[in-house]
């Protein structure tokens, strides 16, 4: 469904993605793991058109979408939930969702938008309870749910999730993961996930990639990745020069 071939990205003169190739098949959950600064977020930003791709190609559903503007990619069916719960804090939960569904309104009108919102409320009953509250007053887990719900409002076929468990209590994080697995099944979504909590993320994933300083080191089934020595090393962000100690 999504294919990246030899993608290179730069921040100024610094090359942060070095010929990265990866793929996500339809209906799969794929996790990217790696230390801070490995380039995981940049990959997601490149896919959703928020970061220019210097060279290489990105294919979505067999169409070359390299260099497409972000808004067009959202219309094509790629939803992006950025890092750090980017919601509109001074607005109510309901208004946030309406904003997330602006495309639905544009194409199908108010009625459809309303039914979409009530569908999302079914999925996240907590948000329904808090629909008139300011988004900024929600708890961390609820804000994360709102961020995901906003992305779902646009009716994506592929969802990019950037560290959904960041700054959340372990129990809430577990809840978020089970929800991700749940609606992924329900909506037949394809998910590309970045996660610091590799163990929890791999538990719901099919496959995973390990990154280090802009390169992919390992591609494997999720179960096998957990026991991979390279994962432990990359994940701890510590390069062990000495192999034989």
């Amino acid at each position, binding site marked *: 469904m999504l294919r990246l071939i030899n993608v290179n990205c730069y921040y100024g003169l610094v090359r942060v993605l070095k010929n990265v190739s990866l793929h996500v098949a339809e209906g799969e959950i794929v996790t990217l793991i790696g230390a801070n600064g490995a380039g995981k977020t940049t990959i997601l930003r490149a896919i959703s058109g928020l970061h220019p791709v210097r060279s290489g190609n990105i294919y979505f559903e067999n169409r070359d979408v390299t260099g497409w503007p972000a808004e067009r990619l959202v219309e094509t069916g790629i939803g992006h939930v950025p890092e750090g719960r980017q919601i509109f804090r001074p607005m109510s939960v309901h208004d946030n969702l309406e904003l997330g569904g602006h495309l639905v309104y544009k194409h199908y009108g108010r009625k459809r938008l309303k039914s979409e919102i009530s569908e999302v409320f079914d999925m996240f009953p907590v948000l329904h309870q808090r629909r008139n509250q300011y988004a900024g007053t929600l708890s961390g887990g609820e804000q994360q749910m709102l961020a995901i719900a906003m992305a779902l409002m646009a009716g994506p076929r592929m969802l990019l999730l950037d560290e959904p468990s960041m700054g959340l209590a372990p129990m809430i994080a577990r809840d978020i993961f089970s929800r991700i697995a749940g609606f992924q099944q329900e909506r037949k979504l394809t998910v590309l996930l970045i996660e610091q909590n590799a163990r929890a993320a791999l538990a719901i994933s099919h496959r995973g990639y390990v990154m280090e300083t802009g390169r*992919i*080191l*390992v591609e494997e089934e999720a179960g096998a990745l957990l026991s*991979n*020595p390279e994962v432990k090393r990359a994940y701890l962000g510590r390069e062990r020069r000495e192999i034989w100690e």
Partner: protein
Amino acid sequence: MTYWNERTECMDREAVCQLQLEGLQATLNRVYKNVRHYRKLFREIDFMPEDFTSLDMLKNLPFLTRRDLSRNYPYDMFAVPLREVVRLHTTSFNFEEPVVIGFTGNDMANWAELTARNLAGVGVTRDDVVQIALTFGTMSGPFGIQLGAELIGSSVIPMSAGKYKEQVKVMRDFKTSVLVSTPTVALGLIQAMEDLGVDPNSLTLKCGLFGAEPWGEKMRSEIEAGFFITATDTYGLTEVFGPGVAWECPAKKGLHIAEDHFIAEIIDPETLEVLPPGREGELVITTIGKEAFPLIRFRTGDLTRIDFEPCECGRTHCRISRIFKRCDDVLVVRGTSVVPDQIGRILSQAGGFEPSFQLVVDRAEDKDRLMVVIEATDKFFFDEMKKQRRLVENLHRQVSEFLGWEVDVRLVEPGTFETGEKVVDNREFD
């Protein structure tokens, strides 16, 4: 037709290429970081793995030979710390320094998957009883089959080779349905069955996997007729897992290489150019899924042809033709690789000087026989015949001991060797 893993065995070409590119990029990044040998090699040709963008670039990378591997004896080719390694094997090659191959836990799981594909592909299920008549030792062959069979859930009998009469008894009484062995052992078992008066109809065998040495269609029909089974070929090298690298599906039209784990190339052994599909040349294997012992462009020394046409069995992975010959002086006899240089070294150790010699293999009574033919120079002439005989006996014992099975040693007149060839293979593979 049964598949073990239909999604990967039948994936389309585009998906195979994507998988291979990703796997190769990751492997190159990893070996550059973790293995000194590759780092040095890549720096010499000024290549950075992160600049690798297409599978076509593979042909610019340097080759890897068995000499390179043995030069890095024992652990210098490993890409993971030794503590991650759960299994060590050595090759059947008898260099002074052998090659040590490590497997991580994931490597073992992948290996099980590969051999399970092979076994399931020829019809093995969890209801089968698999008799493995291969020697359980430092070589990896029987262990891979065991892993795969156990993954499928069939019952494994680790019989080792030899002791034919006991094997036949086990085969009959344990209701063995799948036999895995070398072709020579299979023929030995057929002979033992005749000697014991066991009717092949009284056995429950349904299929057999044979490999580890070259065997032709004639031998295949002998084995099939002797056991009333279908016999298929399987190919593997200890350097690259072992069995499961390539195997024959029941269509018997070439051996499928697992392309989601290996990239196969065919090169001209003289010019080292990559040859187009259909031309015969040396098989070169690059692994894209191995953790502990990744290989980039490893020269196998085996001569074959490659075919990318989809097979009638529905699998899309490319096929190589059956392998009968090698492009170097190495002889594969009775599952062992015999290197002439090594034999020469033993002869010189045992006799005090290195004679000029030739290795001759032929097949008699369904058995491969190796003969070491030595030119009798004046160094072999003593005042007593007894001394000469003792010397020849000594050579015979040393070489047989080294290889683990009986060889003939014969003296001939000087000047008998017409060519400078060190090996003569008189076996016929049709």
